[in-house]
């Protein structure tokens, strides 16, 4: 019966929360439905949304990654350094993107190493790297910003393609890829198996350690992508507050999306909805001009409500 709940959980229920929220928002502000506002939201959610995609796999496999926020700052920072070192031309931009992704993957891989080879509890391992990655970033930037000298770089982070922000495109495409990965490939099945019952997974000839490792590495990849989008958007990376609290937003998106923290099952598209829910909450609160101090209250209530709705629907 436990399984039962978490199953409904990850089916249609997150949608209910989203729809309710959209209705509320459309009343809260007449600007909500303006095309531009909706596009803004899609872009605003893409940064944590992309990370949440990787986080979904990690959580389904029974893990957690608290280090993503710090890793965003690190990957973005190094990317900007590379960009400036290479002169900021088109090739430099391409290189910067590559570098960000590589740093992200390496950072994720290190988390994976600690959890698999080192057998450190994921919460602790990534709590540690959260502190480590941030510290490295601060050290490199001496507490300041990584500033890009390229005029080309911002153009793609801020740019549109077919009227739609590039960040949004990336988010959607990655979401589709991860959905396929999770639901239509053996690897995806193995991720669920590992999260649901490690022993059984081992008996079924699944390389548990490899699967776990990959979930962290993939999360690192999403972090890298998110980092470069963010960096090029602002054309700079603040070592102090780039990516701060991203881990909480990403995890919240995953769980609101119906993936249970206990692992074993979840859905990528649910996570996308979860990210949308959070984005709309933020947008609505700003639009409605609610007392800034009370925004946290509303946000907290809505997050809880969103999950409550899921159970009621059950």
């Amino acid at each position: 019966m436990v399984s039962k709940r978490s199953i409904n959980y990850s089916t249609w229920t997150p949608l209910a929360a989203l729809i309710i929220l959209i209705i509320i928002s459309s009343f809260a502000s007449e600007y909500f439905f303006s095309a531009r506002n909706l596009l803004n939201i899609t872009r605003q959610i893409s940064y944590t949304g992309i990370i949440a995609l990787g986080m979904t796999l990690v959580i389904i496999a029974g893990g957690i990654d608290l280090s993503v926020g710090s890793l965003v700052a690190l990957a973005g920072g190094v990317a900007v350094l590379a960009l400036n070192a290479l002169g900021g031309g088109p090739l430099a931009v391409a290189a910067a993107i590559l570098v960000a992704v590589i740093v992200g993957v390496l950072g994720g891989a290190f988390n994976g190493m600690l959890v698999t080879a080192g057998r450190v509890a994921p919460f602790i391992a990534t709590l540690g790297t959260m502190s480590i990655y941030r510290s490295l970033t601060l050290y490199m930037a001496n507490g300041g910003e990584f500033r890009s000298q390229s005029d080309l770089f911002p153009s793609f982070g801020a740019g549109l393609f077919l009227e739609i922000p590039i960040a949004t495109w990336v988010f959607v495409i990655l979401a589709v890829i991860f959905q396929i990965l999770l639901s239509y490939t053996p690897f995806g099945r193995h991720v669920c198996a590992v999260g649901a019952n490690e022993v059984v997974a081992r008996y079924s000839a699944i390389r548990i350690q490899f699967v776990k490792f990959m979930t962290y590495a993939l999360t690192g990849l999403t972090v890298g992508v998110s980092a470069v989008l963010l960096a090029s958007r602002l054309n700079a990376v603040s070592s102090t507050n780039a990516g701060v609290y991203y881990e909480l937003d990403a995890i919240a998106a995953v769980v609101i999306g119906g993936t249970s923290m206990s692992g074993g099952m979840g859905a990528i598209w649910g996570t996308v909805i979860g990210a949308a829910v959070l984005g709309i909450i933020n947008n609505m609160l700003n639009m409605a001009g609610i007392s800034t101090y009370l925004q946290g209250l509303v946000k907290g209530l809505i997050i809880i409500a969103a999950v409550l709705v899921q159970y009621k629907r059950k």
Partner: protein
Amino acid sequence: TATLSQAGTSAGTSAGSEAAAAPAAPAAAEAAAPVSTEPIKIGVSIPSADHGWTGGIVYWTEKAIADWKAKDPNIEFVLATADSPASQVSDIEDLMVQNIDALVVLPHDSASLTPVVEEVKNAGIYVVVIDRGLTKPIEDVYIAGDNPGLGKVSGEWIAEQLGGQGDIVVLEGIPTVINTERVEAFNAVIAQHPGITILDSQPAMWSTQKGLEIMENYLQKYDKIDAVWAQDDDVLKGVLQAYEESGRDDIKFFLGGAGSKDIIKMIMDGDPRIQADVTYPPSMAATAVSLAVMGMRGEHLDGFYQQQIPTRIILAAELVTKDNADKYYEPDSVY
């Protein structure tokens, strides 16, 4: 403290001139050969770099420490940065254990740090407080920027530029006393100009990205905005980004705050959107370190006729414009 300053004056006067010169012209530091001085240990406790400006504080503190170390090997510094009042209290407790002679502190919060700094003072340690005053006048020297001033100057400049007519939006900082002081002073000024309406005022947490998101929303909500007050230059960067992307051209000008080098540079380069800035220099931290050293050594400021270092130094919130921008440009600073 009397005894302290006595000891100081006797030993100090000789080294006085260089000491005073040092922070003003760090270049001179290397030249001067260290004169024999009794060793002193100075503890520095500041907030960790949780946004651009505090990043600047850390940068300037370390710079001053480096300069003084190069100049006088007998001065030992212990620097601790804290991410919350509680951990700053711990830091200061740890500093006391290490028998410091002087403490330079930028309190996370005024009231929260008062008790522990009082303990420090009672232990006969020389105390220099930066920026956020304690709730009791405990310190030997207090150096700070002028928060209400920043709000006031900003308000007056915007009002003048708008000719008393127009709609403005405000992006505040992290909700703290500092932010409140600035915003209240600003609002007070604007209130005197009935022609000017503040459409909206939300906290951007002194973060570029938050500034970007909030400005995006402002641009959604308000078809006509005449001017923007961002209060902090990091936030202003995000604001400008959002404005560029929106492709709008109705906003006449933007005003940031605290005088980060990027924004100052833009003013120097004559960017039409940004014609001014208001200072709140993180370099005050470096000055504070120097004041601690000089206070310990019982020196007085060069050209000052007072025997003691002034106990209160308020750095005015100055208006930076194209004409004087170069004087405020710090190319090496992180902020």
